[in-house]
């Protein structure tokens, strides 16, 4: 049973648009929430991460929003570009070294 539920499974966005991916968790002991980006044939790469004492973190065009009371967090990709087309995974950890992953979201950015 997946401890982190991710949606949607896939999304298509126009170039310049906003991509939004949502994740939800039940275990309140989770204290580290990273997002990974994966291109076909490659390993996942750490994109951005947040701790639960912060409600939002921004790095370039990527923003994590965190809602501790709702046990939800999301990834926003602003000004989406064709090069952002990839699969994105959210994850969560309570023992600092063990991650539980969501099922992944395939993002397609149309030019």
């Amino acid at each position, binding site marked *: 049973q997946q401890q982190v539920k*991710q949606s949607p499974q896939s999304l298509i966005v126009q170039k310049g648009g906003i991509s939004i991916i949502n994740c939800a968790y039940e275990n309140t002991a989770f204290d*580290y929430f990273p997002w990974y980006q994966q291109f076909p044939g490659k390993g996942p790469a750490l994109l951005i991460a947040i*701790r639960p004492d912060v409600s939002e973190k921004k790095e370039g065009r990527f923003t994590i929003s965190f809602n501790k009371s709702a046990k939800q967090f999301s990834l926003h990709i602003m000004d989406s570009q064709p090069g952002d087309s990839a699969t994105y*995974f959210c994850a969560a950890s309570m023992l600092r070294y*063990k*991650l539980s992953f969501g099922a992944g979201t395939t993002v397609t950015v149309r030019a």
Partner: protein
Amino acid sequence: DAGITQSPRHKVTETGTPVTLRCHQTENHRYMYWYRQDPGHGLRLIHYSYGVKDTDKGEVSDGYSVSRSKTEDFLLTLESATSSQTSVYFCAISEVRGETNSYEQYFGPGTRLTVT
């Protein structure tokens, strides 16, 4: 790639044969992990290691064993491969880094295993 290599990168094997996948790292990281990736499941932890000869099970460890006799190498063995073990296998390392002060995990390029 955090200095991680995996071998082989692709392998096709028959049901019932033993298979060993190798993960090699060059930066002396303490923690190493093996995951499998399947559509609809994301990445699932098979086994992990927190030092030489120190290993523990993950959420999908049945049918897999691991060994770590040197810091730089973490081996994953399928004693008798089954078709359900057809998957892409990723090795990862982790280190404390960045403002989150958490063990950030970095992944290797993966091994695509097909069991026929």
